[in-house]
């Protein structure tokens, strides 16, 4: 593997690791491990931990994928490994 593709792969793995850390925190952190602590906070009729477990985590999942798509498309272009437009 040449330096260029090694650097591309490293950036890719770093991005995925960051996004999956957020993925873990909102679902397993807010929704499961710290649910009792967050449930003491109530916003707009929801206990916060319960809201993350049944609503919030899903919205964050959707956002994470689209952030990933945008960042990867940019990274692909930066390293010239993007696919040609037809």
């Amino acid at each position, binding site marked *: *593997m040449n330096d260029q*593709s090694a650097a*591309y*792969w490293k950036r*890719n*793995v770093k991005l*995925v690791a960051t*996004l*999956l850390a957020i*993925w873990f925190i909102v*679902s*397993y952190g807010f*929704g*499961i*491990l710290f*649910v009792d602590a967050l*449930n003491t906070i109530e916003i*707009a*009729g*929801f*206990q916060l931990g*319960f*809201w993350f*477990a*049944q*609503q919030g*985590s*899903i*919205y964050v*999942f*959707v956002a*994470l*994928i*689209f952030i*990933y*798509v945008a960042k*990867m*498309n940019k990274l*692909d272009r930066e390293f*010239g*490994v*993007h*696919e040609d437009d*037809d």
Partner: protein
Amino acid sequence: MDLTTLTYIAVGLSFALYIGIAIWAKASTTGEFYVAGKGVNPVVNGMATAADWMSAASFISMAGLIAFLGYGGSVYLMGWTGGYCLLAMLLAPYLRKYGKFTVPEFIGDRYYSKTARIVAVICLIFISFTYVAGQMRGVGIVFSRFLEVELITGLIVGMGIVFIYAVLGGMKGITYTQVAQYCVLIVAYTIPAIFIAFQLTGNPLPQLAFGSTINGTGEFMLERLNSVVTELGFLEYTTTNKSTIDIFAITLALMVGTAGLPHVIVRFFTVPKVRDARSSAGWALVFIALLYTTAPAVGAMARLNLTETIQTGEVGAEDGNLSYEERPDWMKRWEATGLLSFEDKNGDGRIQYYNDANADFQTKAAQYGWAGNELQVDRDIMVLANPEIAQLPNWVIALVAAGGIAAALSTAAGLLLVISSGVSHDLLKGTFTPNMTEGQELMAGRVAAAAAIVIAGYLGYNPPGFVAQVVAFAFGLAAASLFPVIIMGIFSKKVNREGAIAGMLVGLIFTMGYIMAYKGIFIPVMIENVEANWLFGISPEGIGVVGMLLNFAVAFGVSKVTAEPPAHIQHMIEDIRVPKGAGSAVDH
């Protein structure tokens, strides 16, 4: 018009639509049969993936489960959505770049081993049959309830419809039918939810109504629900009595299992480019989230409606409970199916619905003159009965029936396709009869799909024990066997043939053995299925996570002490890591 006629019209129209699409999208090459010619727009594929993914369980059962489990139902909500992040970031783009037809084909090529490919096919076939039998049963249940026909008649009609578009159209037919099925199911799911949300809170958006105040009061819905159910001895809605470790393990097993399910993964083989595979996963989750963020609201509203229908007045007051003679029509209709039943234990002619398993509540119940819980409600009826409970017009109920069938058929078709491609492409063409022509392979795929439909129908009619354990078996095995070897195949250049085969077998045998021992599937129960006996406190539903960790550990360990993968495999891994060069150029 009466309900049955309306239901026949709704279901009949939806079937005509599916068959019309099947004729329009007939597959003529193996590329079209297996992966729809890799020409599907990513948004369209996202919609098809959502229908493929959301099964009879998501549509019919999930909100009912949540209604009775409360916070405990969150494992399904997070577990069946979070896997799409893993798919988008760890699997889909790379497998699309690789550009072949099936999941076992990737595993066989990456680990330069026919044995690995065959182990993967066996996992795939077992997982998919477990899953598909439940779908066929779902079709049969909806038919028998709403069209008042025998279960077997419903099953045969459902099998016939899937036969037409899966066998004829292959992946191409399935993809465009799934788009139509998604539209039917999402409309059918959200319309009653919007009506009920508006009735209860004045806010038509279920996602917001869930956190709004009940009409005419200042009381938030979830607060009201918590107080109503605890007064009857039930657990507070927003809490659970499951252990944190078990909730954690089940959620993770469902997420990882989702990302390892072959019928979901192959959907990302059908888009034209690597970047489409990424965005398609995002669109799939958008379409899934529409239902998955509505479901918890539906569950909470259904629980509240049901409880307040029965407990009409003050708890413990003589006239606080619904009189059996005055019960609403929907209860009578569901009583006829046996899914709802009443037994007047204290002989007062009124229905008492409370938690008689709660020891602390016993004395109170005795003071009220209650002699045990008198109402049995099957969880699966909550979504189907919801429009009736909320007194919505008959056409809404007919639509829900068509939606339930759409959800079951779309998932069944996707599963049947991966079974048929596993047989025709991986076992026949790839292993036993490599000299087949494309025409013969296409015919073999159609015959395999037809045979799989018949077996699925039989399993749906006579469900053996393992069919009821879809969550444990399908997701646990996908998490413990397929997911780890795919991930390691992309992210590690060091994991080799020996490591992958050993890892898959260890993950598979451990997970399968654990579920069988506790659930008594195929063998008698060996250990009683209670929390005290579970390994690390993890139930059979969550044990796939431990199987997955074992798979990773064994694969890395064995790979360290055996020869590393040959140079051409290492080059192949480098190649799938960059998007450039995908597309039709690497097609067959």
